């Protein structure tokens, strides 16, 4: 008896259900919490695939850091529920029709297409089997995938500078208030 099949469907259902709540619920905080639940379900799926490191990082980064930041913003700006409601209702019927069509198309193509080909280069699978997935992951990052890894670091630097640039208050813009007064 292979229970993993059962668990896969359990977690997959939770993930999809939570994702639906994120999209459909009108209370933004409930959406955020559903998103956290979805991250956990996805992490569980990663665990079942033997990718413990990715699973842990999924929880750590997405649920633990990014969503906390989201919550921070939600708490800070106190989004009006009425606004949320209007936004959700403004979709025209045409959009719904196109979305349903696209979904049907996707389902058809995915069911008809065979995605069952074993992924992962031979090197990744072998390295993963030989040692813990964290080590294999690290080794791949620093050898085969060194270049994208470095590009990612530059990307993060640029994004960080950009975010600070857009968020920073200049002295002129806040009317000559000095930093000491601000804090």
């Amino acid at each position, binding site marked *: 008896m292979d229970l993993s099949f059962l668990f896969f469907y359990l977690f997959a259902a939770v993930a999809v259900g939570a994702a639906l709540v994120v999209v459909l619920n009108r209370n933004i905080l409930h959406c955020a919490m559903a998103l956290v639940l979805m991250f956990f379900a996805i992490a569980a799926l990663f665990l079942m695939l033997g990718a413990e490191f990715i699973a842990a990082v999924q929880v750590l980064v997405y649920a633990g850091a990014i969503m906390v930041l989201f919550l921070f913003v939600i708490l800070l700006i106190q989004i009006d529920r009425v606004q949320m409601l209007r936004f959700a209702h403004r979709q025209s019927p045409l959009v719904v029709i196109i979305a349903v069509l696209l979904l049907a198309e996707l389902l058809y193509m995915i069911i008809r297409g065979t995605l069952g080909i074993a992924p992962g280069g031979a090197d990744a699978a072998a390295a993963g089997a030989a040692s813990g997935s964290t080590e294999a992951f690290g080794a791949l990052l620093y050898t085969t995938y060194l270049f994208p890894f470095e590009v990612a670091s530059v990307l993060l630097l*640029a994004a960080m500078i950009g975010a600070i640039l857009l968020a920073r208050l200049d002295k002129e813009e806040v009317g000559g208030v000095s930093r000491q007064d601000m804090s």
Partner: protein
Amino acid sequence: MELTLPIPNLRAIMPELVMTFWACLVLVVDVLISKERKTWVGYLALVGTLVTMAFTLPLLGTRTSTFSNMFLVDGVALFFKFIFLLATALVILVSLRYLDIEGVNLGEYYAMILFATLGMMIMAAGNELITIYLSLELMVISTYVLCGFIRRDRRSTEAAVKYFLLGIFTSAILLYGMALLYGLTGTTNLTEIGRALQAKNLGANPALLLAMIFLAAGLGFKVAAVPFHMYVPDVYEGSPTPIAAFISVGPKAAGFAVLARLFLVSLPAIRPQWGTLLWVLCVMTMTLGNLVAMKQSNIKRMLAYSSIAHAGYVLIGLVVANEIGLASVVLYMFVYAFMNIGAFSMVILMCKRGDRGERIEDFRGLARSHPWAAIAFLVFFLSLAGIPPTGGFIGKFYLFSAAIQANYVWLAVIGVANSALSVYYYFRVTMLMYMSDPSGEIRLTLSPSLVFALAVMVIGTLAIGLYPSPLIAAARASMAPIFGP
């Protein structure tokens, strides 16, 4: 576990290394320099692009790959890199005075431009999905920030938010396409994807078709093809004008580079399918861009629609997708860098503090008071409309003849008809400049760097039109790696 780090061929990524170093240098110098002298940071960034160009030159003619075949040095990549660097240098030149006028003379502006350029350079050279995606994000994130650079201006912020929201959405679609490709083939390397698709005979797999559509949609947004063009007019209108010029050339060219490489190298198995898809996109893009451009009263919006139309012309080369077709794509993008940044620079010329000079009406009677400026504008418009003796004519000529040679006669016909349409709105502005009396005093914001940049662009546009053979030879030579032995 003992790890042996690979020692990659760093010579091949020298231009990118120099660019990264220079962007960081600009950031550091920006902190050290006083607020009144931020323009120096701009000059420093300009030197950076020139130095990077100097480091790119020795690579010409070489063909290598490095970092486990993830980064390619070949003719296409190098040609595109020159286009990016050229566009960046021109944009920096026209920005120097503009930032003062808008009161946002911050050094980070130049650093972000350099980061965006770095992203484009890696995009053009990337031969692996993750690399391409990350560099694409590097490019677009930098441009999001640049779009919203004038923070006190609501339109600028709106442009940044729109560009950002739609941009991340299409990035997700692009990623979905990449994930499907990886799921089908088990590799992220473009060459190996192509090989695996042939070997496993996956040409008829619906999932592959789906992946192709997603990739086309994701990249279609970057090149501003219809129906992924919705953001273009608002973003171009709201962004600082030099940045509008920048994103109308740089990301567009980078998008075409990735589109060409991805489809030609990875997806030859479904060549007829993506040929049809791009054909439809191409016709829609040209026609809609030109038709809507006629109705605009804001010159930046007009140029935005014109830039959509130009994306349509360039797509002809991708539909043809043979050596001549792609050579005409890079050729056209090269010319386009000159003429389109030139046209946007004319808007910069008109802008004053508190007034961006974006109404077409503002150009009324320009020829009377400033004949030289009017002539420059005329050259750019002639070129954009594709009239000899300008570079735009050469570019379009090669695109259309490539289509005819490859039996896409109808595509060429539609392209020519569209060019004729475009003449209407370009000449509307020209007529205003030459045939009407000025409604008031026109004062231009002249600065040495802007005038220099304009001179370069006018001369470049004309020179390519009059003596195109070296450029054509270079463009065709750059295609050898894909189609050659």
